[in-house]
């Protein structure tokens, strides 16, 4: 469904991604793991058109999307929950959710989705008139995921959703991600440093080092892989 082919992304003269190719099939959960600075965030930003690749292509269902603007890519149904959540701090929870549906026009469907995310995360309903910047880290992550869902994504990109959260909250968030994938058949591409949790959730995984993909395998095989265990699972 989502296909990255030999992506090379640069920041000025510095090459951050070197020949990255990734395939994500419809309905799959795929994890991308790697150390700090490996290029995971850059990969997601390249897919979303924020740092478009200088060389290489990105396809969605066989259609090239790497030359589209970020809003064109959102329109195609590729939506990101970025690293650090990036909640609009001076907008209310409700306004943040509305912004997620910015490109949609069907009021009734938007209301439906609003109800849906509030059943996924009941806390958001309680906090709906509170400013986004005043939410706790966990609540912000829930809002960030919900805001992305408000765009009705076909492919949901998540950048380190577990960052800085307590183990219990992480468990809850990962459970919800699985639920989103099951209930709506939403394809999930998940970036994580928390390799253990991510690979337990995912069907397949990619390992990235210094801007290159060094390993691709099923999640189980990666969890059993000695190198992965040593480098990313701390075993």
């Amino acid at each position, binding site marked *: 469904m989502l296909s990255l082919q030999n992506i090379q992304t640069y920041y000025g003269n510095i090459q951050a991604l070197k020949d990255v190719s990734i395939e994500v099939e419809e309905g799959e959960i795929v994890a991308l793991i790697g150390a700090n600075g490996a290029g995971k965030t850059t990969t997601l930003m390249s897919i979303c058109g924020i740092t478009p690749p200088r060389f290489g292509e990105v396809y969605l269902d066989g259609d090239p999307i790497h030359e589209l*603007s970020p809003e064109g890519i959102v329109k195609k149904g590729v939506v990101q929950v970025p690293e650090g959540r990036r909640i609009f701090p001076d907008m209310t929870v409700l306004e943040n959710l*509305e912004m997620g549906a910015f490109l949609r026009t069907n009021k009734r469907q938007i209301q439906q989705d609003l109800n849906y995310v509030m059943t996924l995360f009941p806390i958001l309903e309680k906090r709906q008139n509170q400013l986004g910047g005043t939410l706790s880290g966990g609540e912000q992550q829930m809002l960030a995921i919900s805001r992305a869902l408000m765009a009705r994504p076909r492919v949901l990109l998540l950048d380190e959703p577990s960052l800085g959260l307590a183990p219990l909250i992480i468990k809850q968030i990962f459970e919800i991600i699985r639920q989103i994938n099951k209930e709506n058949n939403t394809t999930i591409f998940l970036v994580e440093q928390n390799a253990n949790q991510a690979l337990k959730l995912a069907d397949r995984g990619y390992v990235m080092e210094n801007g290159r993909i060094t390993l691709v395998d099923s999640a189980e095989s990666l969890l059993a892989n000695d190198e992965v265990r040593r480098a990313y699972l701390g075993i």
Partner: protein
Amino acid sequence: MDIEYFLELFFSGLTRGSIYALIALGYTMVYGIIQLINFAHGEIYMIGAFVALIVAGVCTIYGLSGFAILVLAAAIAIIYAAAYGYTLEKIAYRPLRGSPRLSPLISAIGMSIFLQNYVLLAQTPDFLPFPRLIPSFAFMDPVAHIIGSPELVILITTLITMVLLTLLIKKSRVGKAMRATQQDLSMARLVGINVDRVISLTFVIGSVLAAIGGVLVASYIGQVNFYIGFLAGVKAFTAAVLGGIGSIPGAVLGGLIIGWSESFAAGYFSSDYEDVLTFVLLVVILIVRPAGILGKVRKQKV
């Protein structure tokens, strides 16, 4: 102290202040979104006044009444200013997006000088008389020594403009897009907002406000030249910084503070000090509260 004199100064300060606020909004909205001080903003105000002058001249030939001329002149001035603001951003700032912060700043100063000289050459270096387009209302006669008809019209116009602006920003779809872009530009792009369009719109709105201010001031003061944008621009910019640049209520508050302090300083001491006072105030505020009165100390983004 004489209460009527005090009230007269109060209203004259309020009138000036509301105009400064109108112009300050343009600085603060642009700064809020792209962290650029648009030094050419005062020139948009000046161009608004000049276009109104030309339209008024033509209309007078056709024998229209004062108020009709004011409305028509303002409408055409607004359209011109909006076009200038839009074009300014497109040719002078957009190509420099992503370059070091100093580059667009220098470009802004360049555009300011260019526009001043363009009007200087196309028109004249002298002050031109601007027709008194704001009529005197009979019902204002009993209080005319405290607040005149022109002041009333200016106050009501700026008030309506600010209420409309607030509604636009708070409630409308584009207003929400503007706020989102101001709070986190690349996140705004990630939810599908076309931030280039939002930035253009911000320049257009700021220019419209400046043109309204330009027309009001010109018909109040009664004369214009190519240089009026400079001093008004500097004062409005000071107002924006004073209130906290990037903050919309801050721009209004800053404008009013400067308007009042000028008016009271001129009324109770001497008009020699009114310009100096503006900058003394600025320095004091920047020492006590560097982010401005209502400005936020931006937290580092994670």
